[in-house]
């Protein structure tokens, strides 16, 4: 599938509908979403804003490195993946390796920002825990001053910070955009509300989707933190009680809701948590009935997750159909809806 090579006007995205119940596929536009859902359905979105998580720095000895933050830990350290010299313009799998770093090593990003390596993962030497030299407003000011959005080589120009936000972004917990929600402009959200579709939020710290290293990529997604408001738990309960369906916007919402349920004997509970749940083939969703998401490549970890919502045969057919009809992939690409009963 061809990637969308940069930000597009929201509202023009195509929508490939997969109905696992009917075994059917249909073409539509994202703007058709209100007609595809029913009054009483609940759409759950991830309201995490995307922080500029790529930092160019200098390692001990003077080697240039790129640090991609993967998420903040409860103790104030940050999980990060190291890359060698270069930037997003080089495909991650062709990037030179970073110099091996050890606990105590300092990475300098700017006169007002540096970090020390606290821990190097046993999984991979490129996966580290960092502690910055400042915290609070000084840290966040410096991160926003020196960080750039994480992006990949299929894009043609550096991304602006506003291009990686959803229309309803709040706390900057995500290191890559929870991009499934990007087409959900307020005109569309209003149309959904008029249809009787309810909308609820959660915050999930969407992590890195790719590192270019086979061993590291196999470990993705790493554990991610999330927070589910009480109002959303209530909305899920009342929706299900009334026979409505829970439709997740993006794979991160699936991970948060199913992750919460996995931690609490099948029930989504309000509050914060960290999930290491990996949703893949054979996983039986306990909370989420359907998924509105981007167009994912069969090799991506996001695609793995789709197997929990549709049989292989339907996914293969949908992928071929998307290729044939020139759907665009990745974060600025087209969308898909996996929902029983959506093709009638």
């Amino acid at each position, binding site marked *: 599938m061809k990637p969308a090579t940069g930000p597009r006007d929201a509202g023009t995205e195509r929508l490939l509908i997969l109905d696992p119940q009917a075994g059917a596929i249909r073409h539509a536009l994202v703007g058709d979403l209100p007609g595809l859902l029913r009054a009483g359905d609940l759409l759950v*979105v991830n*309201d995490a*804003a995307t*922080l500029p998580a790529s930092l160019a720095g200098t390692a001990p000895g003077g080697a240039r490195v790129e640090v991609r933050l993967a998420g903040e830990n409860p103790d104030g350290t940050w999980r990060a993946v190291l890359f060698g010299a270069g930037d997003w313009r080089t495909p991650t799998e062709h990037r030179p390796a970073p110099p091996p770093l050890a606990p105590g090593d300092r990475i300098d990003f700017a006169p007002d920002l540096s970090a020390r390596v606290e821990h190097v993962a046993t999984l991979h030497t490129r996966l580290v825990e960092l502690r910055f030299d400042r915290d*609070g*407003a000084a840290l*966040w*000011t410096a*991160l*926003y*001053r020196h960080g750039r959005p994480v992006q990949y080589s299929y894009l043609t120009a550096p991304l602006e*910070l*506003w291009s990686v*936000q*959803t*229309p*309803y*972004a*709040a*706390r*900057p917990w995500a290191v890559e955009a929870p991009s499934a929600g990007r087409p959900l402009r*307020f005109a569309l*959200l209003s149309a959904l509300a008029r249809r009787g579709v309810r*909308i*609820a*939020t959660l915050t999930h710290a969407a992590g890195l989707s790719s590192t270019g290293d086979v061993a590291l990529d196999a470990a993705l997604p790493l554990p991610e933190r999330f927070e589910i*408001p009480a*109002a959303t738990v209530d909305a899920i309960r009342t929706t299900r009680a009334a026979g409505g369906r829970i439709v997740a916007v993006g794979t991160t919402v699936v991970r948060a809701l199913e992750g919460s349920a996995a931690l609490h004997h099948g029930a989504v509970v309000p509050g914060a948590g960290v999930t290491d749940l990996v949703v893949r083939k054979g996983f039986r969703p306990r909370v989420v009935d359907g998924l509105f998401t981007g167009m994912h490549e069969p090799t991506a970890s996001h695609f793995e997750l789709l197997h929990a919502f549709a049989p292989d045969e339907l996914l293969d057919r949908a992928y071929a159909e998307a290729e044939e009809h020139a759907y665009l992939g990745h974060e600025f690409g087209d969308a898909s809806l996996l929902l029983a009963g959506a093709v009638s």
Partner: protein
Amino acid sequence: MELHRAGAVVTGGGRGLGAAVAERLARAGARVVLVARNRAELDLVAARIRSEGGDAHVLVADVGDKRAVYPIAGAAEALAGPIDLVVHAASDLGHVPLRLLLDTDCEELEHVLAVNVLGPFRLTKALAGSMVLRGRGTVVNVTSDASVAAYPRWGAYGVSKAALDHLGRIWGAELAGTGVRFVTVDPGEMDTKMHADAMPEADRSTLPSPDVAADRIVAMIRAIESVPDGARLEASSWTPPASTGATAEGKETRS
């Protein structure tokens, strides 16, 4: 709205009305993010708030700078989010001494509009979307009687505030019923640096402290459910609704 534990952003929080509002919000238990260009002034206000046991964070930024807006929103959300209250108190007069329109540089008008209209628009856009989905939030624009009266030499500022007033009305109309409320407040004449810059000949001893308007504005925020969506109100003539808890507090703080 409930201010205890609410995340609040106050632009122009380094002095004058912005600082006075921020201190009151912090006293009511809000977690306040102060935004302005001058770090020394912001640090003083934050230190006063913290010395009273309040929660304050300082972001040095220019709200008139397009590239500063998402960093402000993101850092504020990280430090005190979810942000449920924004007070746009930052404002620029343009050239002082104030000039006639025929003497006003076009770039000067552009700059005043960038700070007084585009800045509040951009920052509101960055923060209000999530408020709508949460079903709660308050946005306060600070305006001036110069938005209504055609005072000679107040052209750039007056035009920007008239635009801000109308922006508030349209925000209010579009988001009516979502739980996100907009109000535009004319604080009246106050003894501030801005007033002295604009009218250096005025006798400062005759002007009320910004504390008086700040008390009213905070009472208004507490009673925001009773304020018509997007309304433009004068702080001096507004009275809290009799039937809400805000009444007593409003009177108390003014006594």
